[in-house]
């Protein structure tokens, strides 16, 4: 995509001429079109390109007829900055624009619904009920689709709502194209609320945990900044970027008319940063010579290619892979998948390769003190100090590559193959067989663990996971939620080998992510025809239950399973520790943590917003049939929710 071709331009012109004609034929013809008048003073005629759109607005003292005035709602015009912005977004391949409406970005809102949604390539407006939901939806979408979607908020009240979701995305290294409506010209704000929705430097409040931000001063500046924002967002480490977009620049006529619109800038082909050749050779030397190498994978597989590359490296070395499950890095039933043995394996490791480690401190604390430690981490390319103080206490690392792991893997694999002596083949095969046996043992252990309490009520979490798997295992499924609160039982019991089958969790462990991020991921899966399923906590869902209405309104097929343990369960466990250390007993720790008295009927809540609901399911024998009915709804293209009254973990 790029600048609209002539045909598209003509189509736009046609629409605008129609608008212009309609407007001029009405009563507004008599009113003074302030914006047009300003333009026409420097632009003698319609369509005459004499105004440079890159020029900033006139500044300093001006004649009364020229200076900024309050918005004239009767003024009409046939081109607008918002349409240009839509063209820029589409040129970046952005398909969706999520927002809870706000008066600082009505200009772009109108352009999306009346121009972006009605012309190709389609830019669809997704209506959310909270700015945190907009950002989290974009978070989940990017983890499936591998590219950003757009979301927009007010500068002040909206950005503050969205801040937690932005921090999650930043910590999770996920690209999001964010914009805020930014009322720059104080003389043209409309009234009291406009003062409250304006800030001198709006992006400042989230600058610590956005990768880059800018406040464009012209449409040409917007175009250039949008491309930069996209590039920064999509260069590892990925992250959310933010443009503060002047409200009037969105609303006003393009200075000089549509023919004077700036060119839509071209997006360069992006190349991620790979490791330095000498460092890669040294890493390969250490790995090849190791007797007990361990590969630790965190946010490695940005794409499906990353998963395949990690498999190649592990198989070449016959080295175990321990996965944090922040991404779908490695097939769950691959014999070299040894995540549940991480502590033991690191304890005897002689070389540890940590790929994009999120917690090198915790990781290397488990490692044998004599182990040589290698890191490949893109976070070291874009460090920030105030939040997410990553890489701290990783001082024992022997070789630290500031590079993207996925981009480095092809070189590393080739170098390992080149250095691997032919005589090591039988030893590596024996190593691999031992790991395959250990994987089978772990699987048997997990199965027996899952059998415990199989028929219990509240329903055991393994039973919940297995009843779900039983329904989806024959489908092209995608788990669009994390699984930490389910003890990563899907990873222990299910078979998954496709990148889109799991997306990991929040990033910054901020609750309120799962329900909206799942919906964003389901939105991405929709066009691929995948069956999206999400296990969402009751506490998480209640942070923003309005997401259920968005699911129904936008007709996004997704199965929500509410892991309803009627509490903020993690906090209960932590509070128990504190209360007992003070020897005051734990019989009151339910206060502030339990979500009961009254119990919430999630199925009824879902139904009230147009989502198919089942539950509360308390008898485990009822769960399978309920899931089957709900999945039938999802396969028809609608969302569904099943409320499962469950054990804590």
């Amino acid at each position, binding site marked *: 995509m790029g600048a609209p071709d002539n045909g598209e331009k003509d189509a736009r012109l046609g629409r605008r001429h129609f608008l212009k004609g309609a407007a001029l034929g009405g009563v507004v013809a008599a009113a003074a079109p302030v914006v047009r008048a300003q333009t026409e003073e420097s632009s003698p005629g319609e369509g005459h390109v004499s105004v440079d759109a890159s020029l900033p607005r006139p500044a300093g003292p001006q004649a009364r007829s020229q200076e900024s005035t309050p918005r004239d709602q009767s003024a009409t015009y046939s081109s607008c900055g918002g349409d240009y912005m839509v063209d820029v977004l589409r040129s970046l391949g952005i398909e969706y624009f999520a927002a809870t409406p706000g008066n600082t970005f009505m200009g772009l809102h109108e352009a999306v619904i009346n121009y972006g949604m009605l012309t190709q390539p389609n830019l669809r407006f997704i209506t959310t009920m909270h700015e945190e939901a907009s950002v989290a939806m974009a978070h989940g979408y990017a983890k499936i689709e591998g590219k950003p979607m757009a979301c927009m908020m007010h500068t002040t009240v909206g950005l503050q709502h969205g801040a937690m979701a932005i921090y999650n995305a930043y910590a999770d290294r996920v690209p999001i194209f964010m914009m805020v409506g930014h009322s720059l010209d104080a003389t043209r704000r409309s009234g009291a609320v406009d003062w409250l929705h304006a800030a001198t430097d709006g992006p400042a409040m989230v600058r610590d945990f956005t990768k880059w931000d800018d406040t464009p001063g012209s449409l040409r500046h917007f175009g250039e900044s949008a491309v930069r924002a996209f590039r920064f967002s999509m260069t590892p480490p990925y992250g959310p970027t933010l443009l503060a977009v002047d409200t009037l620049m969105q609303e006003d006529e393009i200075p000089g008319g549509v023919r004077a619109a700036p060119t839509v800038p071209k997006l360069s082909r992006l190349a991620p940063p790979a490791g330095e050749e000498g460092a890669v050779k040294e890493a390969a030397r250490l790995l090849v010579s190791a007797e007990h190498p361990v590969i630790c994978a965190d946010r490695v597989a940005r794409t499906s290619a990353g*998963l*395949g590359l990690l498999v190649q490296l592990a198989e070449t070395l016959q080295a175990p892979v*321990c996965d*944090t*499950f922040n991404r779908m890095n490695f*097939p769950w*039933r*691959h*014999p070299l998948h040894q*995540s*549940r043995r991480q*502590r*033991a394996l690191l304890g005897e490791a002689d070389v540890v390769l940590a790929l994009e480690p999120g917690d090198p401190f915790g990781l290397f604390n488990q490692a044998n003190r004599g182990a040589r430690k290698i890191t490949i981490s893109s976070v070291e390319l874009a460090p920030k100090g105030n939040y997410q103080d990553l890489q701290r206490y990783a001082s024992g690392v022997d070789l630290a590559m500031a590079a993207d792991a996925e981009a480095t893997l092809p070189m590393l694999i080739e170098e390992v193959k080149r250095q691997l002596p032919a005589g090591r083949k039988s030893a590596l095969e024996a190593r691999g067989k031992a790991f*395959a046996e250990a*994987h*089978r043992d*772990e*699987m*048997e*252990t997990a*199965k*027996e*663990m*899952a*059998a*415990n*309490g*199989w028929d*219990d009520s509240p329903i*055991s979490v*393994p039973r919940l996971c*297995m*009843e779900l798997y*039983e329904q989806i295992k024959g489908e092209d499924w995608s788990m669009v939620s994390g699984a*930490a609160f*389910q*003890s*990563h039982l899907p990873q222990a*019991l299910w*078979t*998954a*080998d496709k990148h889109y089958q799991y997306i990991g969790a929040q990033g910054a462990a901020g609750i309120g992510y799962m329900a909206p991020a799942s919906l964003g991921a389901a939105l991405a899966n929709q066009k691929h025809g995948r069956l999206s399923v999400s296990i969402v906590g009751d506490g998480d869902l209640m942070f923003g239950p309005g997401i259920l209405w968005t699911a129904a309104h936008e007709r996004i097929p997704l199965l929500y399973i509410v892991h309803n343990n009627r509490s903020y*369960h*993690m906090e*209960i*466990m932590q509070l*128990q*520790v504190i*209360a*007992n*250390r003070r*020897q*005051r*007993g*734990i*019989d009151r*720790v339910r206060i502030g943590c339990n979500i009961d008295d009254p119990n919430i009927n999630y199925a009824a809540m879902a139904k009230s917003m147009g989502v198919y609901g089942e539950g509360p399911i308390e008898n485990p024998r009822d769960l399978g049939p309920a899931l089957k009915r709900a999945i039938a709804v999802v396969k028809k293209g609608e969302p569904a929710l099943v409320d499962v009254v469950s*054990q*804590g*973990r």
Partner: protein
Amino acid sequence: MTDTSPNAPPRAARRACWVSAALLSIIPAVAFAADKPANMARGRQLYMATGCYQCHGTRGEGGGNAGPRLAPGPLPLEGFTLQLRHPRARMPVYTAVVMPDGDVADIYAYLLTVPKGKTAAEIPMLKSLATGPSSK
């Protein structure tokens, strides 16, 4: 007993309990209330009231990474008590102030009554799971 690290195998936590039990040979025996027989029904109430179920499940079946299985077939009472009084990992400490020996005995009596459940081999959904390598 309550290491919640996603990578901490429940087996390791159970191993810690067995090690603790072995230590009993070199430490003083824990005193237990002997003035009345253990009360299973009261033990069930205490098990729920004192929050054991939060990490170990409502019938001691275990709570994934949060807490290992306690029943059926709990540890010997001495080892069980030692873990309460001097817990490993992130389990809350239960001193005699917050859980007297009599309460411990009642809870233990309840755990002894939990019947043996199905094995994985008796559950078709689990039995049929693939244990071998995936396609990639």
